[in-house]
C-alpha cells in the first residue's frame, strides 16, 4: 500500500515539468544557501510568489528543492570563506574551514555533499515510513525537554574551547549574555538594548555570525598578508575517499538520526541539530582533540545532521500541521495558500499529495547530490583566486549578507562591531565558536527553563521527573565531565610541549 502510493508519487514527480522545477529549485537553493545572508527560509519565502500560478505538486516540489539545496549550500561558503551561508552550516565552519586552510578544501567539500546527501535522503526516507511514530514522540517534547536539549548542546562548549578552557568558557558566557539582549522572551521587558529598537529581537544572528567569522578573517588577512598565495592545487575529488567514508560512516548514520529527530521536534531546527550531532561525534570519537582543527568527521556530522533535519522538520508539519522549524513554517503557509491544510487530515484527504511530497523530497536530495558533485569543481575555484582579490570580495559579501537579512544598515554596523570583537578575540586566543553555540542555544535554554517553571508553577522537579528531560540532563552532565577532563589533559600536554620548545613570536 505504502510502496504503491510512493511509486505513484514518483510518477508525478518524474513528469518532466515537475522534475525540471525541482531541479531549478535545487540549483537556486544551493546558490542561495551559499550566498551569505540568504537563508533557506528567505529563499523559500522569496520564491513562494512564483509558485502561485503552478499546479500544487510542481510548486511544492520547487520549494522542497530550494529547502534541501539551501541547507547544503550553506556548507560551501562555510568551508571556503568561513562564513556559514545559512545558520544551519554554523557547525560546519568549525572543521570545514580548518580543512580548507590545510589545503584540503576539496576533501571537505566532497565529504560535505556526501554527508548532506546521505543525511538528507535518509531523513526523507524516515519521514516517508515513520512520520506518525516520530510525531508521537515529538509531542512528548515540552519546555523541560527543550531545556535538557539546550543544556546538552551547550555542554560541548568546553570541548570546542580550543587551547584554553577558561577562555572558552568566558567566550561561552559572553555569547550567552549577548543572546539575552533584546526583549525578554517571557515578560517582554527590554534588556540591554541601549534604546535601539533594532535590538529588541536581540542582535540578529546572521550579521553577528558574519562579523565574528568572516569580517574578523578579513581584518586578519589584511594584517598577516598570507605569504603563500592562494592554494594553487586543490586536490579535486568528486566523492570522499574510501578511507574518509569508512572513518565517518558511523558518525553519519548517528547524525542522521539525531538530525531527523531534532528536526521533528518543533522549536529546534537544523542549526541546533548540527551542533548536537557535532558534539555527539566529538564526545564519542577516539580522537576528540582533532575536532576543531580540521577533522573530516566533524564536517560529516554537521552536514549529515542539518540535512537530515529537513526531512525531520517536514514530519510534524505534514502530520500535525505544526512546522518543525522556520523553513517549514513558511512552507506550511505555501501549502495553505495552495489550498492544502497540512495536519492529520492531509493524510486522510490528500494521501496522494503527501506521497508526492515524500517522493519530491527524495528527488530533491538526489538532485542536490548531483548538483553538488558537479559543482565542486567550480566552488573550489573560489579559493584559487588570489587572496588580495578574494579578501575584498569576502568583505563585500559579508556586508551585503549582513544587510540583506533585514534590509538593515543597523545590522551592517552590528556585523562590523562583531568583526572587530572577533578580530581581537582571535588574536588573543579566545575561541569564537563557543559564542556561536551560545547564541543558538542560549535563548532556547532560557525560555524553556522559564516556561517549564511557569507551567509547573515554580516546581523545579519538573526538570528531573520527566524521563526524556532527565536523560538529556544526565547526558549533558556526563559530557561536561568527560570534556573537562579531556580538555585539561590536552592543555597540560600543550603546556609541556610549549615549555620544551618555546615558540617565538612572529
Amino acid at each position, binding site marked *: 500500500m505504502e510502496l504503491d502510493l510512493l511509486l505513484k508519487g514518483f510518477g508525478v514527480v518524474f513528469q518532466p515539468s515537475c522534475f525540471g522545477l525541482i531541479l531549478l529549485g535545487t540549483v537556486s537553493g544551493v546558490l542561495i544557501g551559499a550566498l551569505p545572508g*540568504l537563508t533557506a527560509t528567505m529563499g523559500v519565502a*522569496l520564491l513562494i510568489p512564483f509558485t502561485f500560478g503552478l499546479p500544487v505538486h510542481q510548486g511544492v516540489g520547487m520549494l522542497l528543492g530550494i529547502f534541501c539545496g539551501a541547507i547544503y549550500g550553506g556548507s560551501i561558503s562555510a568551508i571556503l570563506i568561513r562564513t556559514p551561508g545559512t545558520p544551519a552550516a554554523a557547525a560546519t565552519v568549525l572543521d570545514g574551514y580548518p580543512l580548507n586552510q590545510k589545503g584540503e578544501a576539496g576533501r571537505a567539500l566532497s565529504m560535505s555533499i556526501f554527508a548532506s546527501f546521505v543525511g538528507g535522503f535518509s531523513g526523507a526516507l524516515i519521514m516517508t515510513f515513520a512520520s506518525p511514530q516520530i510525531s508521537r514522540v515529538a509531542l512528548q517534547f515540552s519546555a523541560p525537554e527543550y531545556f535538557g536539549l539546550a543544556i546538552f548542546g551547550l555542554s560541548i562548549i568546553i570541548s570546542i574551547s580550543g*587551547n*584554553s578552557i*577558561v*577562555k572558552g*568558557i*568566558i567566550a561561552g*558566557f*559572553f555569547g*550567552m*549574555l549577548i543572546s*539575552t539582549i533584546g526583549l*525578554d522572551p*517571557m*515578560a517582554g*521587558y527590554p*534588556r*540591554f538594548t541601549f534604546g535601539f529598537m533594532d535590538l529588541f529581537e536581540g542582535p540578529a544572528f546572521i550579521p553577528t555570525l558574519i562579523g565574528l567569522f568572516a*569580517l574578523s578573517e*578579513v*581584518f*586578519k588577512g*589584511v*594584517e598577516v*598578508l598570507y605569504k603563500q598565495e592562494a592554494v594553487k592545487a586543490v586536490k579535486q575529488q568528486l566523492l570522499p575517499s574510501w578511507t574518509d567514508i569508512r572513518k565517518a560512516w558511523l558518525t553519519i548514520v548517528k547524525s542522521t538520526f539525531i538530525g531527523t529527530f531534532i528536526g521533528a521536534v518543533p522549536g529546534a531546527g537544523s542549526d541546533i541539530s548540527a551542533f548536537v550531532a557535532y558534539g555527539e561525534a566529538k564526545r564519542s570519537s577516539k580522537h576528540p582533540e582533532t575536532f576543531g582543527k580540521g577533522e573530516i568527521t566533524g564536517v560529516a556530522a554537521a552536514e549529515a545532521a542539518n540535512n537530515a533535519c529537513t526531512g525531520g522538520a517536514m514530519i510534524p508539519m505534514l502530520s500535525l500541521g505544526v512546522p518543525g522549524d522556520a523553513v517549514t513554517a513558511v512552507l506550511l503557509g505555501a501549502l495553505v495558500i495552495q489550498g492544502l491544510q497540512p495536519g492529520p487530515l492531509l493524510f486522510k484527504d490528500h494521501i496522494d499529495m503527501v506521497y508526492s511530497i515524500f517522493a519530491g523530497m527524495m528527488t530533491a536530495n538526489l538532485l542536490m547530490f548531483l548538483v553538488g558533485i558537479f559543482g565542486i569543481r567550480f566552488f573550489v575555484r573560489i579559493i584559487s583566486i588570489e*587572496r*588580495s*582579490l578574494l*579578501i*575584498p570580495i569576502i*568583505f*563585500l*559579501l559579508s*556586508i*551585503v549578507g549582513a*544587510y*540583506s537579512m533585514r*534590509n538593515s*544598515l543597523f545590522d*551592517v554596523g552590528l556585523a*562590523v562591531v562583531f568583526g*572587530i570583537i572577533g*578580530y581581537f578575540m582571535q*588574536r*588573543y*586566543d*579566545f575561541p569564537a565558536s563557543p559564542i556561536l553555540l551560545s547564541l543558538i542555544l542560549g535563548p532556547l535554554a*532560557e525560555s524553556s*527553563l*522559564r516556561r517549564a517553571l*511557569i507551567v509547573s508553577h*515554580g516546581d523545579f522537579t519538573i526538570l528531573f521527573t520527566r524521563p526524556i528531560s532527565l536523560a538529556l540532563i544526565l547526558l549533558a552532565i556526563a559530557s561536561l565531565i568527560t570534556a573537562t577532563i579531556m580538555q585539561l589533559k590536552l592543555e597540560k600536554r*600543550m*603546556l609541556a610541549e*610549549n615549555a620544551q620548545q*618555546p*615558540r617565538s*613570536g*612572529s
Partner: protein
Amino acid sequence: MKKPDIFAGILGLLIAVYVIYSAYHFPEDKVLLLGPSFFPTCLAGGLGIFSLLLLAGALRGKSRPCTDPFNIKDPGVHRAIISLLAVILYCVLLNSLGFIITSAVYLFGLMYLLQRRDYLKMAAVSVAVTLLIYGIFNRLLDISLPAGFLG
C-alpha cells in the same frame, strides 16, 4: 600573553559588574517566578568567576606565551587598524553615498592595503565586483541595497 590576559580579565569583570548592576534594576515579575534578570545575573556571575580565574592565572605568570604579540610598530598591525577604522567610515558613508560608490572605493583601498599595485586591474575589479553583487541582490533577489544620492 600576560598583558592581554590581564586586560581581558578586567574587561570581563567590568562587563559582569555592569550586567549584574543593570539586571538588578529590571522589574521583578511575581507571576513569572524567574524574572528577566535571572538569566543575565547567573551568566554574568559565571563570566565574572572565569574572568577572575583568567586574571589570577595571568598574575601568577601561568599564561601561555603569546604566539603573536600586538606590536604597535608592526606594519601588519597598522594595516589592520587602518582597515578597521576605514570600515567604520564605510558604514557611516554607506547610507548617504550609496552602496556602489562606497563599496567600490573601499574595495580599492582594501586591495591597496593588501599590497596590490596594479591600479587599473584593481579599479576594474572593484567596480565590477560591486556592480555584480549589487545586480544580483537588487535585481535578481529584490533586496534593495542603499542607493544613496544616486537613487
